[in-house]
Protein backbone atom coordinates (compact mmCIF):
# COMPACT_ATOMS: atom_id res chain seq x y z
CA UNK A 1 0.00 0.00 0.00
CA UNK A 2 1.41 3.37 -0.92
CA UNK A 3 0.87 6.68 0.87
CA UNK A 4 -1.95 7.65 -1.41
CA UNK A 5 -3.90 4.50 -0.69
CA UNK A 6 -3.44 5.07 3.03
CA UNK A 7 -4.61 8.65 2.74
CA UNK A 8 -7.64 7.66 0.70
CA UNK A 9 -8.47 5.03 3.30
CA UNK A 10 -8.31 7.63 6.08
CA UNK A 11 -10.38 10.05 4.04
CA UNK A 12 -13.11 7.53 3.33
CA UNK A 13 -13.14 6.21 6.88
CA UNK A 14 -13.38 9.54 8.65
CA UNK A 15 -15.04 11.91 6.18
CA UNK A 16 -18.61 11.29 7.40
CA UNK A 17 -17.94 12.16 11.03
CA UNK A 18 -15.72 15.09 10.12
CA UNK A 19 -18.21 16.72 7.76
CA UNK A 20 -20.94 16.19 10.34
CA UNK A 21 -18.96 18.07 12.97
CA UNK A 22 -18.11 20.90 10.56
CA UNK A 23 -21.75 21.23 9.44
CA UNK A 24 -22.85 21.31 13.06
CA UNK A 25 -20.43 24.06 14.03
CA UNK A 26 -20.71 26.22 10.89
CA UNK A 27 -23.81 27.59 9.22
CA UNK A 28 -22.48 27.32 5.70
CA UNK A 29 -22.34 23.90 4.07
CA UNK A 30 -19.73 24.87 1.46
CA UNK A 31 -17.51 26.22 4.20
CA UNK A 32 -17.91 23.00 6.16
CA UNK A 33 -16.75 21.01 3.14
CA UNK A 34 -13.74 23.27 2.71
CA UNK A 35 -12.76 22.70 6.32
CA UNK A 36 -12.57 18.94 5.92
CA UNK A 37 -10.69 19.24 2.62
CA UNK A 38 -8.21 21.56 4.29
CA UNK A 39 -7.62 19.22 7.20
CA UNK A 40 -6.60 16.45 4.80
CA UNK A 41 -4.54 18.87 2.73
CA UNK A 42 -2.64 19.75 5.89
CA UNK A 43 -2.11 16.08 6.56
CA UNK A 44 -0.56 15.74 3.16
CA UNK A 45 1.81 18.65 3.70
CA UNK A 46 3.09 17.41 7.03
CA UNK A 47 4.47 14.08 8.02
CA UNK A 48 1.92 13.22 10.65
CA UNK A 49 2.17 9.76 12.07
CA UNK A 50 -1.34 8.42 11.87
CA UNK A 51 -1.52 5.76 14.49
CA UNK A 52 -4.64 3.71 15.10
CA UNK A 53 -6.93 4.98 17.79
CA UNK A 54 -5.48 8.49 17.91
CA UNK A 55 -6.27 9.24 14.29
CA UNK A 56 -9.95 9.98 14.69
CA UNK A 57 -9.40 12.20 17.73
CA UNK A 58 -6.71 14.09 15.88
CA UNK A 59 -8.81 14.62 12.75
CA UNK A 60 -11.88 15.64 14.72
CA UNK A 61 -10.04 18.21 16.80
CA UNK A 62 -8.39 19.56 13.67
CA UNK A 63 -11.90 20.07 12.23
CA UNK A 64 -13.12 21.79 15.37
CA UNK A 65 -10.06 24.04 15.52
CA UNK A 66 -10.52 25.17 11.95
CA UNK A 67 -14.23 25.81 12.48
CA UNK A 68 -13.55 27.82 15.62
CA UNK A 69 -10.96 29.83 13.71
CA UNK A 70 -13.48 30.65 11.02
CA UNK A 71 -16.09 31.67 13.59
CA UNK A 72 -13.52 33.79 15.40
CA UNK A 73 -12.75 35.62 12.18
CA UNK A 74 -16.40 36.49 11.54
CA UNK A 75 -17.72 39.95 12.24
CA UNK A 76 -19.55 40.08 15.56
CA UNK A 77 -22.83 40.81 13.75
CA UNK A 78 -22.46 37.74 11.60
CA UNK A 79 -21.63 35.56 14.61
CA UNK A 80 -24.69 36.89 16.36
CA UNK A 81 -26.99 36.59 13.36
CA UNK A 82 -26.15 32.92 12.92
CA UNK A 83 -26.23 32.33 16.67
CA UNK A 84 -22.62 31.29 17.07
CA UNK A 85 -21.18 31.54 20.58
CA UNK A 86 -19.75 34.98 21.28
CA UNK A 87 -17.25 33.63 23.78
CA UNK A 88 -15.29 30.43 23.87
CA UNK A 89 -15.59 29.30 27.43
CA UNK A 90 -17.20 26.00 26.57
CA UNK A 91 -15.24 25.13 23.46
CA UNK A 92 -12.67 23.06 25.31
CA UNK A 93 -15.03 20.23 26.23
CA UNK A 94 -14.33 16.90 24.53
CA UNK A 95 -15.99 16.75 21.12
CA UNK A 96 -18.01 13.61 21.97
CA UNK A 97 -19.49 15.42 24.98
CA UNK A 98 -20.43 18.44 22.87
CA UNK A 99 -22.15 16.25 20.27
CA UNK A 100 -23.85 14.14 22.94
CA UNK A 101 -25.31 17.28 24.49
CA UNK A 102 -26.75 18.35 21.13
CA UNK A 103 -28.35 14.94 20.73
CA UNK A 104 -29.83 15.33 24.18
CA UNK A 105 -31.33 18.67 23.15
CA UNK A 106 -32.85 17.12 20.02
CA UNK A 107 -34.36 14.33 22.09
CA UNK A 108 -35.86 16.87 24.50
CA UNK A 109 -37.34 18.85 21.60
CA UNK A 110 -38.90 15.71 20.13
CA UNK A 111 -40.37 14.59 23.42
CA UNK A 112 -41.39 17.80 25.14
CA UNK A 113 -42.11 20.61 22.71
CA UNK A 114 -45.81 20.57 21.82
CA UNK A 115 -47.96 22.73 19.56
CA UNK A 116 -48.18 25.63 19.10
CA UNK A 117 -44.58 25.97 20.28
CA UNK A 118 -43.48 23.17 18.00
CA UNK A 119 -44.44 25.04 14.82
CA UNK A 120 -42.67 28.19 15.91
CA UNK A 121 -39.60 26.21 16.91
CA UNK A 122 -39.54 24.39 13.58
CA UNK A 123 -39.99 27.55 11.50
CA UNK A 124 -37.21 29.30 13.36
CA UNK A 125 -34.60 26.58 13.82
CA UNK A 126 -35.28 24.16 10.98
CA UNK A 127 -36.51 26.50 8.26
CA UNK A 128 -34.53 29.46 9.56
CA UNK A 129 -37.25 32.06 9.08
CA UNK A 130 -36.93 35.42 10.79
CA UNK A 131 -39.31 36.14 13.66
CA UNK A 132 -41.11 38.67 11.47
CA UNK A 133 -41.60 36.05 8.76
CA UNK A 134 -42.98 33.61 11.33
CA UNK A 135 -45.40 36.22 12.65
CA UNK A 136 -46.60 37.00 9.13
CA UNK A 137 -46.93 33.36 8.13
CA UNK A 138 -48.93 32.40 11.22
CA UNK A 139 -50.78 35.72 11.37
CA UNK A 140 -49.86 36.31 15.01
CA UNK A 141 -48.13 39.27 16.64
CA UNK A 142 -44.35 39.27 16.82
CA UNK A 143 -44.66 39.59 20.60
CA UNK A 144 -46.44 36.23 20.63
CA UNK A 145 -43.66 34.67 18.55
CA UNK A 146 -41.10 35.96 21.07
CA UNK A 147 -43.16 34.63 23.96
CA UNK A 148 -43.45 31.13 22.45
CA UNK A 149 -39.76 31.08 21.70
CA UNK A 150 -38.85 32.10 25.25
CA UNK A 151 -41.11 29.35 26.52
CA UNK A 152 -39.48 26.78 24.18
CA UNK A 153 -36.04 27.63 25.48
CA UNK A 154 -37.02 27.55 29.13
CA UNK A 155 -38.75 24.20 28.63
CA UNK A 156 -35.66 22.72 26.98
CA UNK A 157 -33.52 24.21 29.74
CA UNK A 158 -35.64 22.56 32.40
CA UNK A 159 -34.79 19.09 31.03
CA UNK A 160 -31.03 19.58 30.59
Amino acid at each position, binding site marked *: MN*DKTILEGLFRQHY*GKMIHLARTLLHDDAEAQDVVQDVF*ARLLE*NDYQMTGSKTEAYLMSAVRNRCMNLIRKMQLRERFKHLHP*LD*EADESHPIEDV*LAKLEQINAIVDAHIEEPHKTIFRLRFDEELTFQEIATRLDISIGTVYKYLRQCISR*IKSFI
Partner: protein
Amino acid sequence: MTPTAMETNNNIDRLLDMLDHPERYSDQEILDAVNRDEETREFYHHLTQVTRARRSQRSLSQPADVDKAWEQFEQTHLARPWRERLWLRVAAAVLGILMMSGIAWATVYTVRHINAVDTSNYNSESLATPAINEETEVTEEKTLGDTTAVKVTEPVVFDNIPLEQMLGEIAAYYGMTVDFRNEEVRTLRFHFVWNRGDGLEKVLDDMSHFESVTIQQTGNRLIVQ
Protein backbone atom coordinates in the same frame (compact mmCIF):
# COMPACT_ATOMS: atom_id res chain seq x y z
CA MET B 1 -44.84 38.32 37.32
CA THR B 2 -42.06 40.05 39.28
CA PRO B 3 -40.60 43.20 37.76
CA THR B 4 -37.26 41.40 37.37
CA ALA B 5 -38.79 38.58 35.36
CA MET B 6 -40.62 41.11 33.25
CA GLU B 7 -37.43 43.07 32.69
CA THR B 8 -35.63 39.90 31.66
CA ASN B 9 -38.38 39.05 29.19
CA ASN B 10 -38.10 42.54 27.74
CA ASN B 11 -34.34 42.15 27.41
CA ILE B 12 -34.81 38.83 25.67
CA ASP B 13 -37.45 40.24 23.33
CA ARG B 14 -35.07 43.06 22.44
CA LEU B 15 -32.36 40.48 21.77
CA LEU B 16 -34.71 38.53 19.50
CA ASP B 17 -35.60 41.72 17.65
CA MET B 18 -31.88 42.34 17.14
CA LEU B 19 -31.51 38.87 15.63
CA ASP B 20 -33.89 39.87 12.84
CA HIS B 21 -31.99 43.11 12.17
CA PRO B 22 -28.39 42.84 13.38
CA GLU B 23 -27.32 45.46 10.82
CA ARG B 24 -29.25 48.12 12.71
CA TYR B 25 -27.11 47.74 15.82
CA SER B 26 -23.50 48.36 16.71
CA ASP B 27 -21.27 45.58 18.05
CA GLN B 28 -21.39 47.22 21.45
CA GLU B 29 -25.18 47.32 21.48
CA ILE B 30 -25.32 43.64 20.59
CA LEU B 31 -22.85 42.71 23.32
CA ASP B 32 -24.68 44.86 25.85
CA ALA B 33 -27.96 43.19 25.00
CA VAL B 34 -26.54 39.68 25.32
CA ASN B 35 -24.84 40.50 28.61
CA ARG B 36 -27.55 42.62 30.17
CA ASP B 37 -28.22 40.06 32.89
CA GLU B 38 -27.41 36.47 33.74
CA GLU B 39 -30.73 35.13 32.40
CA THR B 40 -30.37 36.86 29.05
CA ARG B 41 -26.82 35.60 28.71
CA GLU B 42 -27.96 32.10 29.55
CA PHE B 43 -30.82 32.42 27.08
CA TYR B 44 -28.38 33.32 24.31
CA HIS B 45 -26.20 30.36 25.25
CA HIS B 46 -29.17 28.03 24.93
CA LEU B 47 -30.12 29.58 21.60
CA THR B 48 -26.63 28.79 20.29
CA GLN B 49 -26.88 25.22 21.58
CA VAL B 50 -30.30 24.66 20.06
CA THR B 51 -29.13 26.14 16.76
CA ARG B 52 -26.22 23.71 16.68
CA ALA B 53 -28.43 20.83 17.69
CA ARG B 54 -30.76 21.46 14.75
CA ARG B 55 -27.87 21.90 12.32
CA SER B 56 -26.56 18.58 13.57
CA GLN B 57 -29.97 17.00 12.99
CA ARG B 58 -30.16 18.38 9.44
CA SER B 59 -26.64 17.21 8.72
CA LEU B 60 -27.53 13.66 9.75
CA SER B 61 -30.48 13.67 7.38
CA GLN B 62 -28.32 14.51 4.36
CA PRO B 63 -25.65 11.82 4.00
CA ALA B 64 -22.26 13.14 2.91
CA ASP B 65 -21.07 12.29 -0.58
CA VAL B 66 -17.65 10.91 0.21
CA ASP B 67 -16.91 9.86 -3.39
CA LYS B 68 -17.45 13.37 -4.67
CA ALA B 69 -15.42 14.83 -1.80
CA TRP B 70 -12.50 12.50 -2.42
CA GLU B 71 -12.60 13.22 -6.13
CA GLN B 72 -12.42 16.92 -5.38
CA PHE B 73 -9.55 16.35 -2.97
CA GLU B 74 -7.63 14.31 -5.52
CA GLN B 75 -8.02 16.96 -8.19
CA THR B 76 -7.05 19.82 -5.94
CA HIS B 77 -4.24 18.33 -3.94
CA LEU B 78 -2.93 15.26 -5.67
CA ALA B 79 -2.49 16.67 -9.15
CA ARG B 80 1.28 16.40 -8.87
CA PRO B 81 2.51 12.82 -9.30
CA TRP B 82 2.66 11.11 -5.96
CA ARG B 83 6.15 9.71 -6.48
CA GLU B 84 7.54 13.19 -7.00
CA ARG B 85 5.96 14.33 -3.74
CA LEU B 86 7.58 11.45 -1.89
CA TRP B 87 11.03 12.36 -3.18
CA LEU B 88 10.47 15.97 -2.21
CA ARG B 89 9.59 14.90 1.27
CA VAL B 90 12.68 12.70 1.59
CA ALA B 91 14.79 15.62 0.40
CA ALA B 92 13.07 17.91 2.88
CA ALA B 93 13.76 15.53 5.75
CA VAL B 94 17.45 15.31 4.88
CA LEU B 95 17.72 19.09 4.65
CA GLY B 96 15.89 19.35 7.93
CA ILE B 97 18.38 17.15 9.70
CA LEU B 98 21.26 19.16 8.25
CA MET B 99 19.69 22.37 9.49
CA MET B 100 18.92 20.97 12.91
CA SER B 101 22.55 20.10 13.48
CA GLY B 102 23.52 23.70 12.83
CA ILE B 103 20.83 25.67 14.51
CA ALA B 104 19.38 25.34 17.94
CA TRP B 105 15.68 25.77 17.46
CA ALA B 106 14.50 24.75 20.84
CA THR B 107 13.53 27.96 22.47
CA VAL B 108 10.79 27.50 24.97
CA TYR B 109 8.80 30.26 26.52
CA THR B 110 6.74 29.72 29.53
CA VAL B 111 4.36 32.39 30.52
CA ARG B 112 2.16 32.44 33.55
CA HIS B 113 -1.05 30.68 32.75
CA ILE B 114 -4.15 32.64 32.03
CA ASN B 115 -7.33 31.19 33.38
CA ALA B 116 -10.05 30.04 31.07
CA VAL B 117 -12.07 32.95 29.71
CA ASP B 118 -14.34 34.37 32.35
CA THR B 119 -17.77 34.36 30.80
CA SER B 120 -19.20 36.78 33.29
CA ASN B 121 -16.82 39.45 32.22
CA TYR B 122 -16.17 39.36 28.54
CA ASN B 123 -16.32 42.51 26.51
CA SER B 124 -15.71 43.67 23.01
CA GLU B 125 -12.01 43.98 23.69
CA SER B 126 -11.56 40.31 24.52
CA LEU B 127 -13.50 39.45 21.39
CA ALA B 128 -11.41 41.71 19.26
CA THR B 129 -8.22 39.88 20.20
CA PRO B 130 -8.61 36.23 19.28
CA ALA B 131 -6.88 34.41 22.08
CA ILE B 132 -6.33 31.06 20.51
CA ASN B 133 -3.89 30.24 17.82
CA GLU B 134 -3.75 26.55 17.37
CA GLU B 135 -1.64 24.14 15.53
CA THR B 136 -3.66 23.96 12.35
CA GLU B 137 -3.33 27.70 11.97
CA VAL B 138 0.39 27.55 12.48
CA THR B 139 0.92 24.84 9.91
CA GLU B 140 -1.09 26.90 7.48
CA GLU B 141 1.44 29.66 7.78
CA LYS B 142 4.24 27.18 7.48
CA THR B 143 3.04 25.77 4.20
CA LEU B 144 2.90 29.25 2.77
CA GLY B 145 6.68 29.50 3.08
CA ASP B 146 8.54 28.25 0.06
CA THR B 147 11.32 26.47 1.92
CA THR B 148 10.08 22.97 2.48
CA ALA B 149 13.11 22.24 4.63
CA VAL B 150 12.18 24.67 7.38
CA LYS B 151 8.80 23.00 7.70
CA VAL B 152 10.29 19.91 9.25
CA THR B 153 12.03 21.65 12.12
CA GLU B 154 9.95 24.73 12.62
CA PRO B 155 8.52 24.78 16.13
CA VAL B 156 4.78 24.63 16.74
CA VAL B 157 3.62 27.67 18.65
CA PHE B 158 0.80 27.17 21.12
CA ASP B 159 -0.42 30.62 21.96
CA ASN B 160 -2.79 30.69 24.91
CA ILE B 161 -4.15 27.21 24.24
CA PRO B 162 -6.00 25.02 26.75
CA LEU B 163 -3.72 22.39 28.24
CA GLU B 164 -6.06 19.60 27.17
CA GLN B 165 -5.80 20.54 23.53
CA MET B 166 -2.06 21.21 23.57
CA LEU B 167 -1.17 18.06 25.46
CA GLY B 168 -3.54 16.02 23.29
CA GLU B 169 -1.63 16.96 20.17
CA ILE B 170 1.78 16.49 21.73
CA ALA B 171 0.82 13.15 23.28
CA ALA B 172 -0.62 11.88 20.00
CA TYR B 173 2.61 12.78 18.24
CA TYR B 174 4.68 10.71 20.68
CA GLY B 175 2.12 7.90 20.76
CA MET B 176 1.13 8.60 24.37
CA THR B 177 -2.26 8.80 26.06
CA VAL B 178 -3.19 11.57 28.47
CA ASP B 179 -4.76 10.91 31.84
CA PHE B 180 -6.12 13.98 33.62
CA ARG B 181 -6.20 13.30 37.37
CA ASN B 182 -7.24 16.87 38.05
CA GLU B 183 -10.16 18.07 35.94
CA GLU B 184 -9.54 21.71 36.69
CA VAL B 185 -6.27 21.90 34.82
CA ARG B 186 -7.80 20.79 31.51
CA THR B 187 -8.88 24.29 30.58
CA LEU B 188 -5.86 26.20 31.88
CA ARG B 189 -4.26 28.08 29.02
CA PHE B 190 -0.55 28.25 28.33
CA HIS B 191 1.95 29.61 25.90
CA PHE B 192 4.34 26.96 24.71
CA VAL B 193 6.72 26.48 21.83
CA TRP B 194 7.03 22.85 20.85
CA ASN B 195 9.90 21.69 18.76
CA ARG B 196 8.83 18.42 17.25
CA GLY B 197 12.45 17.42 16.80
CA ASP B 198 12.77 17.19 20.59
CA GLY B 199 12.35 13.94 22.44
CA LEU B 200 9.40 13.54 24.78
CA GLU B 201 11.61 13.87 27.85
CA LYS B 202 12.87 17.25 26.76
CA VAL B 203 9.33 18.45 26.04
CA LEU B 204 8.09 17.27 29.45
CA ASP B 205 11.07 18.95 31.09
CA ASP B 206 10.16 22.23 29.35
CA MET B 207 6.55 21.82 30.41
CA SER B 208 7.59 21.32 34.03
CA HIS B 209 7.89 25.11 34.17
CA PHE B 210 4.12 25.45 33.92
CA GLU B 211 2.70 26.67 37.16
CA SER B 212 -0.03 24.65 38.89
CA VAL B 213 0.40 21.59 36.67
CA THR B 214 2.54 18.47 36.98
CA ILE B 215 2.91 16.05 34.12
CA GLN B 216 4.44 12.66 34.78
CA GLN B 217 5.24 9.93 32.32
CA THR B 218 4.31 6.37 33.30
CA GLY B 219 4.79 3.85 30.51
CA ASN B 220 2.88 5.25 27.57
CA ARG B 221 0.66 7.47 29.70
CA LEU B 222 1.04 11.07 30.67
CA ILE B 223 -0.46 11.62 34.12
CA VAL B 224 -1.55 15.22 34.63
CA GLN B 225 -2.17 16.62 38.10
